[in-house]
């Protein structure tokens, strides 16, 4: 499902990549941008947390040329003169003028890095309103944004994700260069699909999915893959050969009451103790063996 989202076959809408301090979703965001540029789409990037140098590093010069980069990194709050783009310009009217400045008939993708920065300065309701208007407006086919889920209250994250067509939550994987993506996709019909996939991103920003999507909630499929044989790689031997296994099974355990043991106990051995009992006047001595009815 992750690859379908990146290839854009799922029809656009609002895609949110949720990350945390343990794993940054920015590289995945770059993969989306590169895939959109390959499809010859018009990509606008509102970069609040990313500067052009870093972007050049990641995407390469040729991609950067084709990307419409809006520098919101240098002065997002207007503290200096002539800010290129401020966070307060994230309203429908300003965005419309920004996006329709080029007269193309190609589909437009708007990428926002990151929503967290905008949410720190604008109210969530205003942001939701703008996103909803972008979705309905028709100027933008796909809106894609990065959200640091650990920076905000759960409710705020929830309200933004509620608007989204797809939500990708990324987390570090077990292996070094792998990560895990949990995807939730809402189809136009209302059907919701979920999947959890392991992926890795190569140097040229292509995403490789390592495992087949596991529907979320069908148990921990991940744990099975990572099982390790504990008897391997030891300096001592923990395994048994066939002979050893047979000998082990033949061995009689000391406290198990088997047939041989019982007959050995019932046979009075030489020198075994005998009890001599002289009954007192008050004792009710019954010669009968009280254990006679037991069937051992």
């Amino acid at each position: 499902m992750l690859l379908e989202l990146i290839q854009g076959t799922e029809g656009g809408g609002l895609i949110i990549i949720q990350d945390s301090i343990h794993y940054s979703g920015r590289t995945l965001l770059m993969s989306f941008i590169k895939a959109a540029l390959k499809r010859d789409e018009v990509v606008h990037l509102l970069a609040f947390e990313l500067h052009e140098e870093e972007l050049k590093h990641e995407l390469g010069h040729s991609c950067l040329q084709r990307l419409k980069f809006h520098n919101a990194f240098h002065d997002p709050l207007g503290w200096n003169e002539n800010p290129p783009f401020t966070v307060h310009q994230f309203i429908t009217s300003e965005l419309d003028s920004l996006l329709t400045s080029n007269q193309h008939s190609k589909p437009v993708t708007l990428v926002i890095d990151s929503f967290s920065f905008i949410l720190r300065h604008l109210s969530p309701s205003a942001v939701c309103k703008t996103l909803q208007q972008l979705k309905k407006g028709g100027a933008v086919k796909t809106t894609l944004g990065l959200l640091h889920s650990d920076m905000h209250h759960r409710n705020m994250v929830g309200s933004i994700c509620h608007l989204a067509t797809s939500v990708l939550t990324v987390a570090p994987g077990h292996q070094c260069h792998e990560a895990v993506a949990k995807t939730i996709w809402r189809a136009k019909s209302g059907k919701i699909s979920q999947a959890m996939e392991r992926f890795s991103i190569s140097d040229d920003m292509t995403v490789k999915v390592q495992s087949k999507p596991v529907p979320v909630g069908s148990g921990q499929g991940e744990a099975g893959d990572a099982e390790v044989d504990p008897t391997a790689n030891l300096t001592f031997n923990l395994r048994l050969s066939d002979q050893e296994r047979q000998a082990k099974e033949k061995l009689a355990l000391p406290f198990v009451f088997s047939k041989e043991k019982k007959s050995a106990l019932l046979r009075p051995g030489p020198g075994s103790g005998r009890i001599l009992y002289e009954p007192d006047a008050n004792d009710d001595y019954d010669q009968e063996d009280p254990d006679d009815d037991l069937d051992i």
Partner: protein
Amino acid sequence: MFPELNAILNTSPDNFKQGELILVSDRRADASFLVHHFLSFYLKAGCKVCFLGLAQSFSHYSAVSQRLGVSLTQAKEKGQLLFLEVLNESLDVLLQKTSNTESQALDFLRDPAVGLRGLYDFVRASVSDSGVGGEDDGGGGTVGRWGPPVLLVDDLTVLLSLGVSVGSVLDFSHYCFVTVCSQLKGNMVTLVRCEGEEDEDEDGDEEGSERLLKGLTHQCCLTLHVQGLPTGFCRDIHGQVEVCWRKTQKDKPSNQRKLFQYKVHDKGASFFARGTSSAVL
């Protein structure tokens, strides 16, 4: 400067990465020894250092740096070090005695809601090439002698306790990063101190310092997190440092992490892999 830490971070005063934001944090421990390390490191590297001293006085840093082989007084006289002694200046600001550039930088003390724009303007003036601001400025020529600018802040949590909001501190940090690291290719080192346990599922009532720590972790390139030993107090091992590289050369979020234990001495600190303390071996 601690040679063992330089080896761990793979840097030296002659060869270090530029344009980096280094986040030093601690949880129920004291990471200020790392601030002294970075201060002496960048002074030895010949960088122009702007130090915002919010937690201690100048004489404290001077005394410690003396033991590390660096003279802060000399650096200040030469113009290599610009030290904003907030503890000293704050009294003047609150009593409204004088009005100079330093007191304008601290106008958030009287009204925290104003934010840290004044402080950012002070930092920008200190590190920029135009060299505007500061009475001891010897003209535009002094800045060119030194290497890339470095901003050191000790520590950001003090701002939170003075009533500044987490959002304002994050904005201040963003702007300083833009100016110092991105535009001037310098470095920035900040210290954030946390209290209490780290709770992954805590939100809403999260303490300001936790949110600040998370916000800065997203921005930074390298974090050094100092904690006490999980097993308790030890006389020979003062704690553990977790070094985490967030962005490598190719910007792959490989999040390489290394854990070391340390001991602070009179004239430095030694770092060693877990379980290899000289007291143990």
